[in-house]
């Protein structure tokens, strides 16, 4: 990609409003181009100046809330390092690699779009890995989402069915490579007894779309996860499997 084209997009990249699909290749260009990196750094400083314009005095109690929130997050990380979850993380990463390899084969035919989808899926799997580190493995099911068409899109879903009284169940879906103009996309859990809505997929970072939902209790007969396009057609699908 030529610098002139990238530079046209850099103000929006710095402002964080660049179209999600353009972010990965702009970032890729920046890793290889010192000139564009310099321009980006300067624009970022302009963004920082814009942020400074809105500086306001927060309520006094907010500092302790922030410190406590970070301490809680750090505490969770420390606890899970002691938990026997290395296998879960390794499995998640292996699954990611497997999916990435499949996508790499398509990349040869479909070029950058597939490469973007592969990278998004691998990153999604890494994020799942972080979630999985927090779990014991009980009640966790996962689905690799494959396209039902010739699309290069794909993704991953994870469902947590807690057996702790009062604790919430949840589902998380992250996908990449879906065409922007065929949304909005929605994710569902499907089973013999019907479907359960996870929710609309929203743009996340680097071309990803994501949805998550908390449930009082997910019906136990859910068999797969599907993603539907704006017309209600299933575009991604994957069976839920125990981890």
């Amino acid at each position, binding site marked *: 990609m030529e610098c002139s084209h990238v530079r*046209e*997009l*850099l*103000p*929006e990249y*710095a*402002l*964080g*409003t*660049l*179209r999600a699909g353009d972010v990965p290749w702009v970032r890729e260009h920046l890793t290889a181009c010192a000139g564009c*990196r310099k321009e980006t*750094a*300067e*624009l*970022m*400083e*302009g*963004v*920082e*100046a*814009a*942020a*400074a*314009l*809105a*500086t*306001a*005095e*927060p*309520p006094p109690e*907010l*500092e302790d*809330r*922030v*410190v406590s*929130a*970070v*301490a809680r*997050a*750090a505490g969770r*990380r*420390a606890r899970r390092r002691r938990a026997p979850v290395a296998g879960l993380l390794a499995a998640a990463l292996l699954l990611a690699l497997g999916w990435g390899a499949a996508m790499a084969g398509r990349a040869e035919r479909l070029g950058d779009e597939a490469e973007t989808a592969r990278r998004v899926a691998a990153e999604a799997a890494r994020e799942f890995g972080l979630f999985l580190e927090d779990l014991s493995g009980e009640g966790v099911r996962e689905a690799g989402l494959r396209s039902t068409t010739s699309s290069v899109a794909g993704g991953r879903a994870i469902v947590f069915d807690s057996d702790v009284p009062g604790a919430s169940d949840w589902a998380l879906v992250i996908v990449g490579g879906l065409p922007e103009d065929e949304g909005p996309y929605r994710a569902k859990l499907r089973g013999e007894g019907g479907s359960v809505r996870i929710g609309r997929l*929203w*743009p*996340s*970072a680097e071309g990803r779309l994501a949805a998550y939902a908390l449930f009082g209790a997910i019906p136990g007969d859910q068999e797969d996860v599907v993603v539907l396009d704006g017309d209600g057609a299933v575009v991604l699908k994957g069976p839920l499997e125990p981890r």
Partner: protein
Amino acid sequence: MAPIPDNPGRPPRRITGMRSTDAHEGPLTPDAERDLVRRLISGDEEAVRILYGRFGGAVYGLGLRLLGSPEAAQELTQDTFVAAWRKAAQYDPARGRLSTWLMVIAHNLGVDRLRRESRRPLAFVEDVERLAGEVVEAEGRIVDRLAAEEMLAVLSSAERRLMGLAYYRGWTAREISLHDSIPLGTVKTRLRSALIKLRRAHGWKREL
């Protein structure tokens, strides 16, 4: 560095009191930033407090502006510092200052939330120029109103409006182009010139 002579009718004014810089013993050196990040990664409470002391006001103010309520701004502030802790290992000083990195995290979280909730800030921001007055009156304790006014003075009215829509409402260049009936290329050019001018004005402030 002198301010951009974009507004010859107003003499340069000394800007003071921006919390993220001179309210806390001057800007951090690159070594100090690296040390702070190392301590953040290890979950050092004091490092979190230092980071918050320097940038909490900027993050909170950005949240107020983006999301329109003190409650949402507080949540955004909390989420930003937790995200900074999670991502701290990815921070690369060679790619930018710590403050820039943190504010990008805050802005991305804020814009994501705006889009997710499909709502606009309660305080409708037509123009960045209103910043200098609104937040002061709402909060009563903005660190330095003059600093904001001086910074905004370097922008043309068209640039101020575009920055308001892009940064404080999270609109894309295409959305702005359609909304304001301005060619897309013009929007991009004005956004770039606005950012460069703000950077220079901000740099001048830091050197005082």
